[in-house]
């Protein structure tokens, strides 16, 4: 199947007073219909910025290069109006804080279908009944009455449902979810994860889910890309990446979570901090913190993404476990 959204060699450079910051230093990924791609990484890894840049939402100070295909159309050469039109029609967005997407002085019903009025030419009356339908779809009880309520009358979890309804209003081909459950309680998170999975099954929407939570990734993703210092260090099918994490960084991240089965043993930590985007090292960006350490080549030469199994790639000269241990 053809990808819904594909990015190739995407870079994002942001001008700062101290020089150019390399927020995204060359990433490639694609997401197909009905599939969920999880972009995972710690703060500053470039996971959000790569998606914002791909969809034309990067800040004005950012210089974006590379190729982006949305349903086969190359986006990078298009004018802002056309790009905005395509984005509004085909992509829905859900962000961490629902209040960044909601206007506090408009009823949720108006907001849910605002985009549909513009992109699908719905009339006011049709829009209202569509809004009730969408609020029902995302599990808001007594949607017929709640459609006239304001955002402050909803709980955090219910607001996020409203934002999801808003994102789905134009029946998008792609849903971009940027840490959509990070601000929510764990029982509410479970509700939202279930909801998105269910909607995806019914509507066949492709999803790009940006998160720092490896547990959420394990539950939602078909494929996963682990980002660090603006690059993908490892990507592949979720089972392969979790069962045989091949980059030392992925392995360390998975080991850093407390495991109730481990009986309170000391947690594995990663020493130091990620490099500054103003000064990315020439070689492997993780090398200074790497528990494997490798050799001088790691320090001076950027390792390419190499396949370790079907669809599973890793950016290191020393994939883990080493070839000898891998059966």
């Amino acid at each position, binding site marked *: 199947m053809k990808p819904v959204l594909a990015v190739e060699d995407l870079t994002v450079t942001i001008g700062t007073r101290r020089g150019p910051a390399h927020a995204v230093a060359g990433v490639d990924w694609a997401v197909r219909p009905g599939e969920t791609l999880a972009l995972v990484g*710690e*703060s500053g890894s470039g996971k959000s910025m790569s998606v914002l840049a791909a969809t034309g939402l990067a800040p004005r100070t950012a210089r974006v290069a590379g190729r982006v295909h949305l349903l086969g159309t190359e986006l990078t050469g298009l004018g802002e109006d056309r790009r905005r039109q395509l984005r509004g029609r085909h992509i829905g967005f859900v962000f961490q804080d629902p209040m960044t997407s909601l206007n506090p002085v408009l009823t949720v019903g108006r907001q849910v279908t605002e985009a549909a009025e513009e992109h699908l030419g719905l009339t006011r009356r049709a829009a209202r009944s569509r809004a009730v339908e969408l609020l029902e779809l995302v599990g808001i*009880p007594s949607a017929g009455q709640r459609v006239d309520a304001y955002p402050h009358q909803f*709980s*955090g*979890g*219910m607001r996020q449902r409203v934002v999801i309804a808003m994102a789905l209003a134009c029946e998008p081909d792609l849903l971009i979810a940027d840490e959509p459950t990070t601000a929510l*309680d*764990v*029982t*509410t*998170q*479970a*509700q939202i*994860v*279930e909801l998105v999975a269910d909607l995806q099954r019914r509507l066949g929407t492709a999803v790009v889910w940006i998160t*720092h*939570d*490896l*547990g*959420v*990734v*394990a*539950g939602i*993703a078909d494929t996963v890309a682990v980002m660090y210092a603006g690059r993908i260090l490892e990507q592949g099918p*979720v*089972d392969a990446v*979790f069962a045989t994490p091949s980059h030392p960084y992925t392995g*360390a*991240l*998975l080991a*850093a*979570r*407390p*495991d*109730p089965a481990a009986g*309170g043993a*000391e*947690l*594995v*930590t*990663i020493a130091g*901090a990620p490099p500054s985007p103003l000064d990315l090292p020439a070689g492997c960006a993780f090398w200074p913190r790497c528990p494997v350490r490798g050799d001088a080549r790691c320090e001076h030469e950027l390792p390419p993404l190499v396949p370790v199994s079907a669809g599973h790639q890793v950016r290191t000269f020393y994939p883990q476990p080493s070839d000898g241990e891998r059966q």
Partner: protein
Amino acid sequence: MSERQRADLGTAVPADGTAHGGVPKQREPGEVVAELDDLAVWFPTPAGLVRAVDGVSLRVRRGETLGLVGESGSGKSTTGLALLRLVDPTSGTVRVGGEDVTRWSRRRLRALRRRVAMVFQDPQASLDPRLTIGASIAEPLIVHRLTDGGAARRRRVGELLDMVGLRGELADRHPHELSGGQRQRVGIARALAGEPDLIVLDEPIASLDLSVQAQIMNLLRRLQRDLGLTYLFIAHDLAAVEHMSDRMAVMYLGRIVESGTPAQIWRDPAHPYTAALLSAVPVADPQVERERRRIILSGDIPSPVDPPGGCRFRTRCPQARPECAETDPVLAEVDPDHRAACLFAKEAVRAMRST
């Protein structure tokens, strides 16, 4: 009811020592450092009285970590604040080091705040941006008159920085020059400055990246081992609380609904809310995630202005029965050292898990 609602497991330590050939299996429970007895903290708001904490009893013993886990609105943070008298109890008592501090005046509270220190979630917000790191850490030393003169103070600040794994030269920096993890280490150094009897850790890792969370948890445990510290560890992250605690309590809507050892709570939860919470925690294993059946709670936590009568969890409990609306269940022992506030403790969890 306060006796039965007690989250303290030390009050019911079994006669373990004699049962196994006279070799004591459990260490002697330490002295009680801090204690809440039937604490209520209500806040007046335009919408009515918010019952943030509504009948919580707990004891923290020297050298242990008591974990307090709950979702937003459970009252866990307010409970922590009450131990420092940073909120005023509506009823009930707060005892620290055996002294009833519930009605202490502002003057006397200064002494209390040396004995009970706090580490907050957001180290950025809890450090004064205009002060150097050294000055921030020195503040409690000055307030509580703990060092004699500038040279001794600087020495002590250096010692504290070293304890939390920071280089001495960071003393001259400002908070914005530090990473989130470094700032949280400064927050911990500040809490250590007064050599407190108890440190209340309120979501100390929630705003940090994963690899940094592990660093901070390891640091806290190492400090506890080396200095014999006592912690109240408050978090919404069940796995973190499980990892850090000797005993833990689960809060819901202003009450403790279950308490026990982390192993008891994790393997054999007795309260339906705990079971639902556990089933909602994502596990970093795609196979486990695919096969597990979640207990999805419907709706949201009810308003603490108007909590449901009877059992507070009944409006969301998949196993609620008519009796649950009539009786407000007390924390009762379900196993040695393991308590739950549910009329159908264990039974309801078994039923939830089999349907």
